[in-house]
């Protein structure tokens, strides 16, 4: 199972990196989503895998009977923050689209000229 998770993390990362390097805002946001999945699973894997061992305390269980609660707590924070970041990114994409009539991520020569003329 470790191999499956590790390879999935690798695939997410590769997809994320490739998409992030694309020239349009929407692909970049999708790429960020993939990187988020990769990193979240990476954090989970840092706690080593535990199958069917939840973190709910119950009587009669030893400390070793629980999954490590620290990585999930970290991942929860990560999910929340990356949600906020994704939201901001897509809205920036929309705003940029209306401002520049283009959803390209690079500043092109004409846009630069417009920006200079505004200054």
């Amino acid at each position, binding site marked *: *199972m470790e191999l499956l998770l590790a390879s999935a993390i690798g695939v997410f990362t590769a*997809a994320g990196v490739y998409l992030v390097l*694309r020239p349009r805002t*929407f692909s970049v946001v999708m790429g960020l989503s993939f990187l988020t*999945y990769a990193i979240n699973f990476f954090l989970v894997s840092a706690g080593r895998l535990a199958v069917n061992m939840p*973190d709910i305390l119950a009587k009669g269980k030893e400390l070793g009977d*629980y999954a490590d609660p620290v990585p999930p707590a970290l991942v929860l924070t990560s999910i929340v923050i990356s949600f906020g970041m994704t939201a901001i990114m897509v809205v920036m994409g929309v705003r940029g689209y209306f401002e520049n009539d283009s959803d390209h991520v690079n500043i092109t020569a004409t846009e630069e000229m417009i920006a200079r003329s505004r200054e």
Partner: protein
Amino acid sequence: MNIALIVLLPLLGSILPALMIRSGRNACVASATVVNFLAFALLLTHVPAVFFYHTTPKISWPWLASIGLNIEFWVDGLGLMFATLILGIGLLILIYARSYLSSADPMGNFYCYLLIFQAAMVGIVLSDNVILLMMFWELTSLSSFLLIGFWSHLPAGRQGARMALAVTGGGGLALLAGVLLLAQVADTYRISEILTRRDLIQNSEWFPTILVLILLGCFTKSAQFPFHFWLPRAMAAPTPVSAYLHSATMVKAGLFLLARLWPVLQNDGLWFYSVASIGLLTMLIGAVIALFQDDLKGLLAYSTISHLGLITMLLGFATPVAAAAAVFHIINHATFKAALFMNAGIVDHEAGTRDLKRLGGLMWLMPVTGIIALIATFSMAGLPPLNGYLSKEMMLEEASHTKWMGLKEVIPTLVTIAAVFSVAYSFRYFFGVFAGRVRHDYPHHPHDPPAGLWWPPTLLIMLVVAIGLRPDLLAESLVKSVTAAVIQDSPPDIHLKLWHGWTPAVTMSGIAVGGGLIVCLLTFVLRMAWDKLPRPDAKVIFDAVVHGLTRGCQLISDGVHNGSQQRYLFLIITATLSFAGWNFLSYPWAHGGRPLQPISTPLVVGWILVVASTILVVLNYHNRLYALVALGVVGLFSSIGFVYVSGIDLALTQVSVEVVTIILMLLTLFFLPKHSQPESRNWHRCRDGGLAIVAGLGMGGMSWLMMTRQWSMESIQSYFLANAKSGGGGTNVVNVILVDFRGFDTFGEITVLGCAGLAIFAMLEGLVRGKLRQRVQSWEPDVTRTADRHPILMVVVTRVMLPMAILVGMFIFLRGHNLPGGGFIAALVVSVALIMQYMASGFAWAANQVRFKYHGLIGGGILVAAATGVGAMVADRPFLTSWHDHWHPPKFLGIDFGDIEAASAMAFDLGVFLTVIGAVMLALAQYSKLGIIAVDAQVNANPMDCDPLNHQSPSTGAKPH
């Protein structure tokens, strides 16, 4: 207490003149003067303790004790003398500046800056903590930047201010490193303790480094060669600033620190040869250049450099008597030089020029000013019976028997030459401006100034004469006490008097005066030679260095930062991979021995689905809607994956976040093109693909390495597992960590989310209301829209579901502390239910039902969370400590309610809940508002598009605004 007040009064009081200027210029000056006077009076209350009872009052308040930074002040002889100069002369300057500044100058700012500067200076001299001292040190650089550039419309002022800041600020950095090393070596940050550890410091291998770094700081601040060039350029400042900062106080900060650290840093070797030599050189160069200045303030600036060099040299001699001479000259120089600067200001103010070539004969027109200048310049030249003579004699006496590299002639000769020029420029100042015939071509008609301008320098001149005549009464015990503080030992046996007998110093003085007179008369001849001499212009060099640095940085930033995000990301990812790969490749890849978890069929199926979806997205990202669906599949299966690896909370959160994210991206896709054309060049794709594969191998490989190995250290999980119930009152350990153990993190996290919601609102508000609204309105949707905008079936279903969804949300919220759930997940569930109302029934109707603003929800949520945390502080516990208890209520109507638990963490979770709903709803509601503007749709504010009872056609509502 009241030691700190001496510093705090001007610091906090600096706001007063800036406010009082509204009530007029006199009120502004009066407020500044009162603040300064109170600080001065407070300071003087310490005089008896320090000078008569020989104690050193101290205070110490902890601030950041862990890094050695505490609020520690002390008043000893040296600090008291400097503080007296700073506050005393400051008072005169404040009054002088009232008459000096013209009505066009923003006086409130001026006095505000001046008081900040004053506080910083007093802070330097009274600090008993090296880091605190450094903070004030930098504050003087900053406030002097503001003051030098006060006339910001003048290019010279701006350039001078920049140069001063660059030089003194750069020196400040060196000094910071130096004092930190010093404190490390001495093992204390308290100055009074450092001063007792001379052996420890001088025997340290770091001693040369420490000395060089500290000297760099002191020499730049005190304008010693070769850093002297900023001071003449700082003369672009208003004259009160020059008189205050550049003669009496700030430039002496370097000298103060040299004197302060004298007991631990001085020795016959490195200290003597660096400090004394630099001082001597500065003294000589300053004096020579000063003679050839035509600008009065330029002359005074170079003369100041020369005198600062003199004092530095005396401190460098490393003998108690030389230290006493240095102390005495600091006092004397402050009095006559501040008076002279004010004098130059008066001449400038009344005659309209400071150019020596255009002046002369003013004695007959401005007799009061002339007399001030006469006494002050003669004191500067070192003529009896004025105070400048006394300290100069002491200096010459010390110089006459100090050897340099075993040669006994070097120092006396050079010092005498410097003294000759010093006499010459002093005479040139007085005779050039005031002697000779009255001219008729002054820019203004000069006459004596109003009292506000002449009595402050007059007061100083009276000191010059009084100290000169009766040094034994007025200065001797003061100089002895201060010297004792400098050398941290009993003071040398010195007697200040005008006539010590026929000593070598008298001979040297005689040569200086005679030679000075001749040189002064020959200025014209010497001037021709001087003008032919090739001299490096410091400004040109400085500008070239600054320009070179700017150019270099610009080349780098233009190369890296060319507006192409693709390039930035490529560089960042490549750099990360290269750094990480370096270590990674050297690591064994093999399985690390930790037993693996078994693989099951559902797992493999899930893996195949996820990987296949990912590949689909990568291959088809041009077809955006399609790619988004595949992305959603990945997200959902990730949630299931979390369940599998025992992260139930994770799965719940992931699935609810996934829903909201996909909704958001769908909304985005409504505006953005649904398809994009392939446009990357092939080799670009190959390059990015290669990078992606390397990154994927790296991340996957790293997690493989990690998962197959045991922890190298014991995990901290056992602490949380053991204390979740007893300490946090909950059995869901993940939730307890979030709301209790790491509650501060979560508090920060919801704040971030709230900010994100507000930022989205603001960004979209620019489209809804700003100039871009027209663009949005003229935008044409690129897909055909359904005719049935709000299908009645969906409207009805969502409305029925709303209360149920809220009930589910409450359930999830309440169970969160003991079972999977919690405020965040509950908030997302409720948000989704609310968004569905917007989607099904339209923006107008949904927005009308909302009785409050989502902004308030964000703020309210953060406040609730904060209040919970503060509640713990009220109970005298650290911020966000949780409280929990349980009780068993009596049976009611035969129903047993069981144990009811309550934890303050629940109130905190409520804050999380409210903030998240607020942020999500604020963003999405604003989004749908934008949609209505974009499609120019007629909105329907009624509950449904058609009334099912009357079978009417869809009603038309009003347009949104």
